[in-house]
Structures are given as C-alpha cells and as structure tokens.
C-alpha cells in the first residue's frame, strides 16, 4: 500500500479513537474536539511517511502535541467562561456532553484532577486509551522503563488521592 492508502486506512480505523482521546482531555467541548482532531490528522498527513505499522499510539502522540498548543492558548479563558455558562463570549462552546456530575465516576475524576498533568496523562493513557506500557512510551516519547516507572508512581499517587477523598467524604466505599 502507498503512504496515502496507509494514511486513509489509519484515518478510517482510528478517527473515533483519536476523537475520544481529544474529548477526554477537553471535557467534551464538541466544537473544539472537532477542530483539534482535524489538526491532528492534518499533521499526521504531512508526516504520513513516518506512519508506523501500529499507528494509534503514534496518532495519540500527535494529538498530545496539538492539544498542548490548543490548551496553552484557550484553556484558561474558556474554563472561566464555561463556568459562567450564559456568557456571550462563550459563543456556543459550552460543555456538550461531559461526564455526568452525579455519575459514580465523578469523584474518581476529582481524584485524578488532583494529580500532576504528567501523572494524569499516563493514567488516562493506561485506563482510558487502554494502552500497554510499550505504547504509552510511544505516546510520551520516552523509554519503556521510564513509562513503566511513571505509571507505577502515578498509580500510587492516584491511590493516595482516592483514599483521601474516601476518608473525607466516604465516597466510593
């Protein structure tokens, strides 16, 4: 298959997985999710000669870079504006379908949010994108041993936060 065909196959196969990856990190703000995903595949298209045989972790790596750029510019303002909900300058970018605040998962999200961004990412890649440690290493651009170590430490810290929340609110027991 040519590079173009490989790219088209990867696009069709992984479009929704990449969308979920982005949505999980943008709290589901749908108009932004689409923008970022479009950017991910535009970048991937340019780099299609480098597309590996297992493209998904590589695509997540591209998405991670795109998100870092998007978040740097917009995250701060939007978060405040989204909180207000009815603010005009939000122009329709409110949360579209974030996780239900009443869902049993919400306190786990709280525990996750208390960790460092690096800890959060390695945990999400493992639990939500269901990647193995070798694949996590591809996304993070680090060695397998370093990825395993990061995951180990992040799990320990998540455990501590969960326990703390459980003690504070009796949640999850």
């Amino acid at each position, binding site marked *: 298959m040519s590079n173009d065909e490989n790219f088209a196959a990867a696009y069709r196969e992984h479009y929704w997985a990449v969308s979920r990856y982005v949505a999980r990190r943008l709290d589901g703000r749908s108009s932004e999710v689409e923008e970022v995903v479009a950017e991910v595949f535009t970048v991937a298209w340019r780099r299609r000669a480098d597309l590996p045989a297992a493209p998904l972790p590589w695509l997540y790596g591209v998405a991670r870079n795109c998100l870092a750029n998007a*978040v740097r510019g917009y995250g701060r303002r939007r978060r405040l504006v989204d909180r207000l909900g009815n603010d005009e300058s939000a122009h329709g970018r409110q949360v579209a379908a974030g996780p239900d605040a009443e869902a049993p998962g919400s306190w786990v999200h709280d525990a996750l949010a208390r960790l460092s961004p690096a800890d959060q990412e390695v945990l999400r890649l493992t639990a939500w994108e269901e990647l193995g440690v070798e694949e996590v290493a591809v996304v993070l651009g680090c060695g397998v041993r370093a990825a395993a170590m990061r995951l180990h430490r992040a799990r320990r810290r998540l455990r501590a936060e969960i326990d703390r929340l459980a003690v504070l609110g009796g949640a999850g027991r």
Partner: protein
Amino acid sequence: MADELELLRSANPFTSDGPLYGDGPLDHHAERRLNRLLHDRRSRRCRLLWSLAATVAVAATVLTLVLGGPSSTPAVAAPRALVVQAHSTPVSLKQLAALAAAVAADGTPALRRGTHVQSWSLGMSDGKPPVTVPEERIVRWNADDSHTERDIEDGRVLKETTFPPSWSDVPPDARPPHDVAGLRAYLQETAYSKTPLTTPELLSAVGELLDHWTLGARESAALARLLAGADGLRPVGEVTDRLGRHGQAYVYQRSASRLMLIMDPATGAVLGLENTFTKDQPEYGVKAGDVMEYSAWTR
C-alpha cells in the same frame, strides 16, 4: 476497594461503544476532511509544520494554576476593579486611532513575537469560594524558532520551559498583519469564527493576539482603527492601570459583566483588558464589582 486503575477505567467519560465518539463509520464531516486531505493537497493551506520529535512539555501548568488544588498558588486578596478618574476627559477611539497612525509613521517600535503579560483571573472550583490567581508570563522567541516561556511570581521564576523550534501560519501564531482588513480577518480566525466578530468576541481575540505577540506601532495603529469601528465600545475617561500606567478606558456593557479596554493615550497601543461582574452571581460566589479577569501587557 477496587484497584485504582479499575476505578479509573469505570470512570471513562467516552467509551468506544458510547453515544458520542463511539466507534463506527465516519460521519459526513470526517469523510469530507479525509477527502480534502487526499485529493485537495495543492490548494490546501500550509497550516502547521511541526517538529514531531519535539516532546512538548505539558502546558497544563496554566490549568493547574487556574483549577487550584493542593499544589496551586495560594489565594491572594482580589485586586479591585480599575476606577475611572472623575472629571477626566474621555478621548474617542477615533481620535486615538488617528494618534496611533501618526505615531506609527516611522514604524518603531517593531512587531515582536512573544509576550509579557501579567494577569489576574478568578479561578473557580465547585464548593469553594473563587480565588484570584495572579500570573506573570514572559514568552521570548529565538532566532532558530525555539522559544522560552517563563512563569514568574513575585519576581521569582517559578518555571522556565524552552520549546524546540516550531512554526505555524495559523493565527494567533501566524504573524499579524498591519492593515485593518487583514487584522480583522486574522482576529476572526483567531476566534475560530465563521462570522464577523461581535465586540466581546473581538476583545477576547485581541487578548489572544497579545498573549502571543508584542505589537509594533503599525499593528497597534491598525488595531486602534479596528477597535474604533467596534459597536458599543464607549470612552469613559482616564484610568491608572495595575502597573501604574496612565490609560484611556473604553467600556462595553454586557448583561452581567463589563469589559474595559485600556489604551495608551500616548501611542494608541492596548495596555490591558478588564472583565468585571456587574451583577451578583451567588451560585459562583462572586459579587458585582468583582474582577473576573484582568490582563496587562508590557513590552
């Protein structure tokens, strides 16, 4: 109690069999984008060029600062909204734009990539009163297209990150033009809008621009002219901004908040933007007069 990874798995907000972003055939938009990539390559704009090897340091510091949490910056007393000086004479934006055009005749100072911004913004979290988060950020670009971002607190560098070379021709990363029509289109693209911007959207996009670029005299003149044509932006008089600089203030009143644009009366450059609540919002723990967000830009 379940394993922490199990708990996290069960809290996955978007699953492959979920209603949103679940696996399945591509939708119309996704299909069209793929076709455009495959067949339309010549006419496509060169949007983004990346050095993929670049391990982009996670830019979530900002998020951490805003969201609060155990490791965040401690709350400080919220600074008060700027006060317009009594009996000062308002200068119209038209007058200011004319002044800016005259000052820009020799083209100095020049446009510079990067920014120096001090901001104060209300960080909110559920069940806790809002806190004002101060932030000072300096972004400097180098000749090889790498850049360094510094987060500063009380004159101390909290965090310094150097990013590898990167390029983009998408606003607000792309170089801003110094003609009014070009700048208008640039700001519209910055705001991801398909329609002409309303005044609040325009001001928000201006903030975005100034968070990326330190405008030169020519860009400031074009911006002043653009702002002079914005609906509902009313001159109210003189203020002294939080950095002690004299400014002319222009106000846009919204249903529950007020936007104030602060311009340099000597050069017509934008000095700052302030967003203040004008109604109590008890569910968010904010009162009329509280400043939601304030940014001050310096060279």
